[in-house]
């Protein structure tokens, strides 16, 4: 069986901006919102890369090229729904409501950076690969037990599909029919390892077959495809019809992290070419132009607003008080054990130079 035929890559808008799924309810306002969220994400990303170069934030994980996959899927869930990002999914979290302020704190190695705003359900970004799939399953299972119609969406990469937790997460979700959207971003690489070495299978979507989980591939650079297909999955989940696995086929233009040098393992010309042909923002712009919904003035205005927002966030963060060591002692247990209190006391004594 040819899996690439069985799992075609759904496109709603061609690279040239042609709408090929005309029955959707898209309009100018929605398109602009899509574009704006993606611009905001990209501008923030670029800012962060620069900040890292200037040494103003720590090692940073860029997502340029993956904005449609993240923003489109994030817009398909609602406020009370749960999001489980990785270290690379800030386009998704900021779209779902994480503040730029906290994102910047995150990259400064601050615990506050992982805390979502009140009322927003966003887990701290998962670092151990694939571990978050089980949390998304567990949290969604809890929603089901509470008879709510809340869903969870969890982000993970192509490399993550090799970990045991990927498998266990999908199996639990399938067995307990949890309202979970497994949003895979197949960006072609796990650091230096191309997806062809990560797995022998031609698609990630086919991995859903083992669990009887509905699975599909979408063009991850086509925000309309991502948004509408994710929305269908979300609706299925809300209706009680269980999980979906979505493979969003995309590409990261840049380095794995700012500490990575992609030229060691791939020809960056391919990224440059993709940037000029399949870029998600460009795709949407072409579509909007064809629809007559584009305006350069609007874009300029919008970007000015975002620049303003980012600069303001940065200013605030620069003024943010320093980390307090008590954040450690106070957040291991609800009530610190004597061991921790002893260590706190000792630490304080020494730092105050007060010999006990």
């Amino acid at each position, binding site marked *: 069986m040819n899996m690439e035929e069985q799992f075609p890559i759904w496109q709603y808008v061609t690279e040239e901006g042609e709408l090929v799924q005309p029955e959707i309810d898209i309009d100018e306002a929605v398109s602009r919102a899509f574009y704006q969220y993606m611009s905001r994400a990209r501008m923030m990303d670029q800012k962060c890369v620069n900040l890292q170069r200037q040494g103003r934030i720590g090692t940073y994980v860029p997502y340029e090229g993956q904005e449609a996959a993240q923003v489109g899927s994030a817009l398909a869930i609602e406020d009370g729904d749960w999001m489980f990002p990785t270290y690379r999914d800030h386009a998704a979290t900021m779209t779902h409501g994480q503040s730029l302020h906290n994102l910047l704190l995150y990259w400064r190695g601050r615990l506050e950076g992982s805390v979502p705003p009140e009322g927003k359900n966003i887990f701290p970004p998962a670092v151990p690969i694939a571990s978050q799939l089980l949390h998304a399953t567990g949290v969604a299972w809890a*929603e089901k037990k509470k008879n709510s119609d809340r869903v969870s969406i969890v982000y993970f990469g192509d490399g993550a599909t090799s970990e045991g937790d990927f498998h266990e997460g999908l199996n639990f979700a399938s067995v307990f029919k949890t309202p979970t959207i497994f949003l895979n971003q197949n960006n072609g690489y796990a650091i230096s390892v191309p997806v062809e070495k990560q797995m022998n299978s031609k698609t990630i979507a086919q991995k859903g077959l083992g669990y009887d989980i509905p699975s599909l591939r979408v063009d991850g650079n086509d925000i309309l495809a991502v948004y509408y297909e994710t929305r269908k999955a979300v609706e299925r989940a809300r209706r009680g019809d269980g999980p979906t696995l979505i493979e969003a086929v995309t590409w990261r233009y840049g380095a794995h992290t700012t500490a990575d040098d992609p030229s060691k393992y791939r020809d960056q010309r391919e990224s440059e070419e993709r940037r000029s042909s399949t870029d998600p923002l460009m795709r949407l712009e072409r579509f909007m132009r064809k629809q007559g919904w584009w305006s350069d003035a609007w874009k300029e205005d919008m970007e000015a607003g975002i620049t303003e927002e980012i600069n303001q966030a940065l200013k605030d963060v620069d003024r943010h008080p320093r980390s307090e060591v008590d954040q450690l002692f106070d957040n291991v247990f609800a009530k610190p054990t004597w061991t921790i209190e002893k260590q706190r006391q000792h630490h304080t004594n020494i730092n105050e130079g007060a010999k006990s």
Partner: protein
Amino acid sequence: MTTVAADVKKLTMIQAITDAMRTMLDEDDSVLVLGQDVGINGGVFRATEGLLNEFGEDRVIDTPLAESGIVGTSVGLAVNGFKPIAEMQFFGFIYPAFNQLMTHATRMRQRSLGRYTVPMVIRAPYGAGVKAPEIHSDSVEALFTHIPGLKVVTPSNGYDAKGLLIASIEDPDPVLFIEPMRCYRTGRTEVPAEKYTIELGKAKTVREGDDVTVLTWGAMVNDTMKAVEQWEKEHQATCDVIDLRTLYPLDRDTIKTSVEKTGRVVIVHEAPETGGVSGDILSVINDEALFYLKAPVQKVTGFDTPVPVYSLENEYLPSARKITWAIEEALHY
């Protein structure tokens, strides 16, 4: 035989554990029991016997055979309003869940600055001496006392088991509750029918004496008591025998007070010597009562070898002879 009040029953430890879970399932709708074979089968040791019938399969849940899955989804359940009691079928099968426990269950509070918390209990039968197959007899509590954010509790009898398990379920943070298999059905204790708790972090002095402090936990408590009783009959000296009950955080005060009194210490545990919880006890003694010591601390422990298959487990396990030998070493140093 002592008269037993109407609301007190003589229970085995396993019955007391079931009773604790029943009590909490009954009292608190957010409590869940999940794991392999915990449903209709009632658990391989019958710890969850009857609970499925009583509380239904939304509360008492057979999961797929995947420990990382059990602990990982429990993290999600716990963050989102439930209090999962997850059973590992044997302690030696918790290893596949190590990552979820180490990097998520125990770190969530810090990582989210208290926004998300994980009020969850992991139960696991442990220890050698029941002729179980390979890997089923591991006693690896020390791997977990080193994990920040995790309390580690182990009862040695029914009364303590119920009180400690309820306290663990009510604890707002993750608790690893390990149950010495050898104590499941050996002996009964009086267990009140009503709800009660025993504070985590408090040891129990199970025998009072003046000359030697014997620190132990789990299945070694009974073995130690028997050895000490016999030994005291034949000798002029007496022992403080302390059941630590909670291995993290240790009961510093009880250890300190006893060591100050006796100046002689024996630690009995079945885990391998190197890296065992004995190291943490030595640390407490070093910090709190070092110069009260009149002899080096004697350790009666498992060997630095994997817990063997059962033909050799009695060689591996601390024996009465080794325990009394150590007491004498401590006494006559």
